[in-house]
């Protein structure tokens, strides 16, 4: 099987995010960069499919020079090769267009993406990619079976789970619960250094760098009005006060 897993390098979830003084973006100094957690589920599923069916896994990533480190992590987990499309930043549509241009050359049977990236939280790239490649998609997948050129994907919706069938090739966006991603072993990390990564420039791939969706300003999160700690020693008395406040002041019960 010819399998692709897309990965994005993002700030670690613990990272302190500071907006630049001019609101034009975030301060990048001192950030610990990691593989987008949802992409880990995609890489793991790709590796499991390869181990079950034979074939190879290609990691594709769009990002600045530092993103190479994340590609190497995926190679250390067991993928065979990588493609690094270099660009400083891109909106969702242009990211998907760049990925599509690179992936068309690979012509895979299945493509994994994370269901969203935890920096922009946009949740668009995987879907746009499927549309540009003109192949079907199933998003936010928590279970997957592949057989006879088709996939059966489990997708949670509000109050239910769907079992969706799709022919291949298709795009699957991975959700937490799909699998338990493996850690890269030390031998894996050593081997990864020698695995081939093809570096391509986004503009050379014919991809526009003009964003369709632009962040014009970044601001700190909206302030909440300061709250009150209900004083006293008796839990029963405090609970009664809370119930009264919720009823009469907040009017939520």
């Amino acid at each position, binding site marked *: 099987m010819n399998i692709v897993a897309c990965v994005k390098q993002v700030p670690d979830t*613990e990272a302190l995010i500071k907006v630049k003084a001019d609101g034009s973006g975030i301060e990048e100094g001192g950030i610990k960069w990691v593989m987008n957690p949802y992409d880990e589920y995609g890489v793991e599923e790709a590796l499991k499919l390869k181990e079950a069916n034979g074939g190879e896994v290609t990691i594709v990533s769009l990002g600045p020079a530092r993103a190479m480190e994340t590609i190497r992590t995926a190679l250390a987990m067991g993928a065979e090769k990588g493609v690094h499309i270099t660009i400083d930043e891109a909106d969702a*549509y242009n990211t998907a267009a760049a990925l599509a241009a690179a992936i068309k050359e690979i012509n895979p049977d299945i493509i994994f993406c994370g269901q969203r990236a935890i920096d922009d939280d946009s949740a668009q790239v995987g879907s746009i990619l499927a549309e540009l490649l003109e192949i079907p998609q*199933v998003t936010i997948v928590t279970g997957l079976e592949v057989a006879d050129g088709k996939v059966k994907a489990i997708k949670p919706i509000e109050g239910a789970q769907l*079992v969706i069938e799709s022919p291949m090739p298709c795009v699957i966006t991975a959700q937490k619960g799909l699998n338990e991603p493996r850690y890269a072993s030390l031998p894996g990390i050593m081997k990864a250094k020698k695995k081939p990564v093809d570096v391509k420039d986004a503009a050379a791939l014919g991809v526009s760098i003009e964003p369709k969706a632009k962040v014009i300003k970044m601001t700190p999160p909206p302030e909440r009005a300061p709250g009150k*700690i209900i004083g006293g020693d008796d839990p029963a008395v405090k609970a009664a006060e809370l119930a009264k406040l919720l009823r009469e002041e907040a009017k939520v019960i």
Partner: protein
Amino acid sequence: MAKGVWIVAEQRGGALRKVSFEIASAARKLADELGEEVSAVLVGSGVEGLAPELAKYGVDKVYVADDAIFADYTTDAYSAAVAKIVKENDPSILLLGASVQGKDLSAALVGKLATGMASDCTDLKIDGGKMVAVRPMYAGKTFAEVVVDSFPQMASLRPNVFAMVENAKAGEVVKFDAGIPADALKTKVLETQEDASGKIELTEANIIISGGRGMKGPDEYKILEDLADLLGAAVGASRAAVDAGWKPQTDQVGQTGKVVSPNLYVACGISGAIQHLAGMSSSKYIVAINKDEEAPIFAKADYGIVDDLFKVVPELTAEVKKIL
């Protein structure tokens, strides 16, 4: 010249979902500022009769694609239908709800319409004739104002954030043929496995009682369930509780769980790590019950009680019972 503020209404099983009225109201507000009309796209099977409900919330026209192939939502069928009618009419703005279906459909439409979108927005404004969308980024550690430089300017709206405002308009029904050849549809819903009956979906709940590491174990959630039953609330969990195996992943509120925006969120034994806040900071009112006075959750709570949740919660249930 792109004109008109459009929404894609969401229905399931022939009933409109609440987020449809939220996005209709948001669209109406933008349209009034722009001096334009609000149109809704409604895709489904046997759904034409739902148009008047949309009209109630400010929708001037409802474009309906009604066919058996739309009985179950699939990305390919619904996106093909909506893309067709949108391309024929060239609206300026297109809004969807950031529900499960909305997130899926809106992203596919971004691809089909080759445009840009601000996802999971908490506010929308008009500035110089353009839509400015406000949305959280980095798990809500920052907020961003986003402008789309192509048409339609797309945005998906976080459920339970935008007010439903009644504003009766015509809701004129215009049926359209999605014109999708049968072999163009590739995905199929084989099965729908409903969750346990009576379980309230977190992302739709008005009140959530949530438990974290301080709950100490799965059985202890009974006291939260008692309170929740009384209030018609849903019960949520923090990542710590899910990782400990006390609650399933689908109950997790947080950055790698669900984003919820209830009227009331009661956090019991939850410290308030930034990743948890990412999932519930849109809540209108936050209550924290935790015996650790240093817990970061208290900085975000509207009301806090520093005490043992095992003493406080049953007392709270008793008091609420008296009031209701």
